[in-house]
């Protein structure tokens, strides 16, 4: 297999993730899941692998919601997907189909459309579709994989307003509560909490995901990352005096992120370089120092003012301190470090709140002792370089 940063990998080439996938299925037995992840960590690959190999007793419907921009589109897309995937069911009478016909829904060349108007038919269509499918699938359990849900909610918020976006979240929550055999696995390229915070600013007071379990997609396990690097080195035919050592270096330098591993190998290939640990290190250094910022790491700094309005200088100070610290830091030391830079800073609670947010946004990780450090060594390294620390 050739390196393919960002491209689409066949399911049988997706390496590792077995423990994460087992955990996710285990959790889905009990609860629906919100899967959080940094961009390009491979969450869609996880979904595709889960979809391709579901355990017995599960029925999976998978959708990319990025193309959905209105509530009507959401309900019809779910209805269509369910109907399309279940040809036998299509022929039987079912409540959602009947409702769709009754309200004047149309179908042209297989494309469905709800009637325009003020009636919020999408709610009924959505709930009945789920009810029908849950009933039809018994004794199997039904799970929807909804990728890129935050993009959909943002689109709906822009086009139809906050109220409709809130209603979608509420309807989905009520469906989860009413159908015991129904599960959702929701994920997205941007944090759901950022969409929620915008809705909350518009007086949304519900907690639509508090009945769901948060699971973070972590980078690959080191052996899997090394195996991926080894295969890519072979696939690209890169010369190497010690393929194992080179693969280890690539996995380490790329933080075990599949995207960075693919990118490093592609870079070696396009530069005509050999896969040797020293060359790998130099390649990563040049990527981190490149004025073109090929991995768009500047985003980690540029988003700070909008992610933490009013607190950006404190966040920068926290991250600067951790970027130069050679070990995870307890809150007390971070508090002291912050005070050396901002004499007036005396609000420990505010610091705790910021640390929590930084943790949720994948800047920081927390050790079992409660100490903080950068979540990803690669980002820490870039941060120190970029900030001249």
């Amino acid at each position, binding site marked *: 297999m050739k390196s393919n940063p960002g491209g689409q990998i*066949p399911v049988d080439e997706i390496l590792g993730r077995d423990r994460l996938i087992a955990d996710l299925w285990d959790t889905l037995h009990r609860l629906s899941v919100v899967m959080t992840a940094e961009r390009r960590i491979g969450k869609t690959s996880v979904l595709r692998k889960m979809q391709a190999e579901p355990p017995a007793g599960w029925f999976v419907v998978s959708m990319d919601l990025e193309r959905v921009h209105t509530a009507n589109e959401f309900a019809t897309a779910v209805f269509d997907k369910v109907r399309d995937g279940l040809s036998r069911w299509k022929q039987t009478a079912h409540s959602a189909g009947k409702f769709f016909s009754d309200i004047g829904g149309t179908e042209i*060349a297989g494309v469905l*459309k709800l009637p325009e108007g003020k009636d919020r038919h999408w709610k009924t269509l959505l709930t009945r579709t789920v009810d029908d499918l849950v009933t039809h699938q018994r004794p199997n359990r039904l799970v929807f994989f909804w990728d890129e849900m935050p993009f959909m909610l943002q689109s709906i918020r822009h086009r139809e307003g906050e109220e409709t976006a809130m209603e979608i979240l509420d309807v989905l929550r009520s469906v989860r509560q009413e159908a015991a055999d129904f599960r959702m696995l929701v994920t997205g390229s941007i944090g759901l909490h950022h969409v929620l915070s915008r809705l909350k600013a518009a007086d949304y007071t519900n907690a639509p995901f508090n009945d769901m379990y948060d699971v973070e997609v972590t980078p690959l396990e080191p052996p899997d990352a090394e195996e991926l690097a080894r295969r890519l080195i072979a696939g690209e035919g890169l010369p190497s005096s010690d393929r194992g050592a080179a693969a280890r270096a690539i996995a380490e330098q790329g933080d075990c992120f599949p995207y960075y591993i693919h990118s490093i190998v592609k870079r070696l290939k396009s530069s005509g370089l050999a896969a040797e640990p020293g060359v790998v290190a130099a390649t990563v250094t040049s990527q981190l120092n490149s004025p073109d910022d090929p991995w768009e790491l500047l985003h980690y700094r540029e988003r700070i003012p909008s992610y933490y309005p009013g607190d950006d200088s404190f966040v920068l100070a926290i991250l600067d301190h951790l970027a130069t610290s050679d070990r995870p830091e307890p809150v007390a030391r971070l508090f002291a470090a912050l005070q050396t830079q901002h004499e007036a800073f005396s609000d420990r609670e505010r610091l705790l709140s910021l640390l929590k947010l930084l943790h949720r946004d994948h800047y920081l990780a927390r050790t079992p002792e409660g100490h903080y450090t950068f979540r990803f060594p690669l980002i820490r390294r870039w941060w120190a370089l970029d900030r001249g620390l």
Partner: protein
Amino acid sequence: MADRAFLSRFTPSRTDPAILERIFVQREALARDTVERVRESVLTGNKHHLLFIGPRGSGKTHFVSLIHHRIAADDSLRDRMRIAWLAEDETTTSFAKFLQRIYRALADRYPDEFPRVAIELLQHQSDESGRAALLSRLLTEKLQGRTLLLIVENLAELFEGMRERGQQDWRAFLQENPTTTTLATSQRLFRGISARTSPFFGFFQPEHLKPLGLDDAVLLLRKIAEVNEDAELASFLQTPTGRNRVHVLHHLAGGNPRVYIILSDFITRASLDELVGPFEKLIDELTPYYQARLKRLSPQQREIVEFLCKSRHAVPVKEIADRLFISHQTLTSQLKDMRENRYVEGRTVGREARYELQEPLMRLSVEVKENPGQPIRRIVEFLRAWHTPRRLEQQLRETDPRLDIMCSYILERHRDSFDPYERALDINPQLVQGAHDRAGALLNLNQWDQGLKALEDCLHRFGPSEHDDAGDVESILHLAFAHSEDEAAWRNRLELLVSTYAKAEALVYLGTGLVRSLKSISEVAGNKDRLADWRDVWHDLGKGQEPLEIPLRIFDVGVRYLQTGDRRVLLDLVREERRVLAEALGLDSEDGSKGQR
């Protein structure tokens, strides 16, 4: 010489693929790698999405045409893929329209498999989402599990036209139907693929096409000459002089392949050697193209371009704002847009940002309208002299049999070498190098009057243009500087020198020597005032001498840079002049500044 082969200047996809293959230079390894990736995409589930980035004329379409040709000719792929090559420059405002374009491209190529009648159903779909859904189904169904090789040029424009909604729709389509592999081009890296918040962040594999190096440019021209069966030109391009002439073009035009394709249409061995004529014609040919590009700008942006053209140096943002009465905020936004579209380039030194036109040829094409001929003639003649290797270096490279004479000269055994020169000239009065060396030896012996007379005799007898040889000016100037202690003595000697070169119509060589000698003279000058005095003398002597105008400007900036060490000073020159100065002073980059992101 056969009729010239048809090489489309602006649409290489119209050129015979066999010719594209024959004139392909520099990117063979990249082409092979790209073909392998497309092959893998067609034959396995590993779908690559490749994006080739380069400014206008950088050979993107040539490259893509070549890949297309190689892939389409591969029998093992034929039944497993369908190719949709989207027509360039067609505006696309939604995902549905994008899918429609793909379907139409497939219908043109495979009419039996993708009947046009199938998309007539679209007329019944009034909304975009419905049309997109319908087309998605139709395409998936008609592809029958084959891989779609999608070739898209100007991806940035496509993204801009489809806006975020269309981009999201496309990405969802690709995620749900992983059957497409993409070969795309773009003039620039754009936020739609590079920003982490964009749907397509990290999705494409960007590859920046490198500009042609000098050797690549020479090879391209040589290959085209071979295709045109112009053996004389092909052979000239393999000589050091031929290479030097292309060096001048490369200095001004950079490594933009389109420039060389256009040039190849009218150069001959003789005109390439002379250079000014073909360069003027090149600018003439490019003018409508640049005019069309300028017309795409808003009136305010055009005004900025015109101002930058007239300024003839990199201009601080504040100065642009003040002179054009534009608010700083508006100007910043306009410059950002123009920078992204590669009209202008920003340079930051310290805290000051300065702007200039990105392409010297665009500036020259605007300048030439106001002052026909002169700006081009002056700079081309200067660079022609600049890129003529100094005689001794060239001779040493060619291991000339008269090496012993030159070695005496190089080793500064001037008195010892004088007699051999005399003897050599007795035997062969046409020995131009020997004559120049004899003059050089006299000057080195501080016999200034006799030396100048000998030099005048050489220039008179042989003329500089015939042999590109006007004596070792750099060394002569060094002697003039070092052997005289005061300004008056310099003035006397230099007046004679300028007059000698002016009479021989060889001032341009004096100019290149003046710039070349700057570094070594500054090293022996001792103090900054002495260097400033030297400059002042030259300014007086250069007045009214047109061939000295460009070198004196470069020289002046060079002196100021050496006096202050301030890199901003370098930005007082246009890029092609800055490059000359950087070379003369041995600087790492032409301005030592960072380009703006």
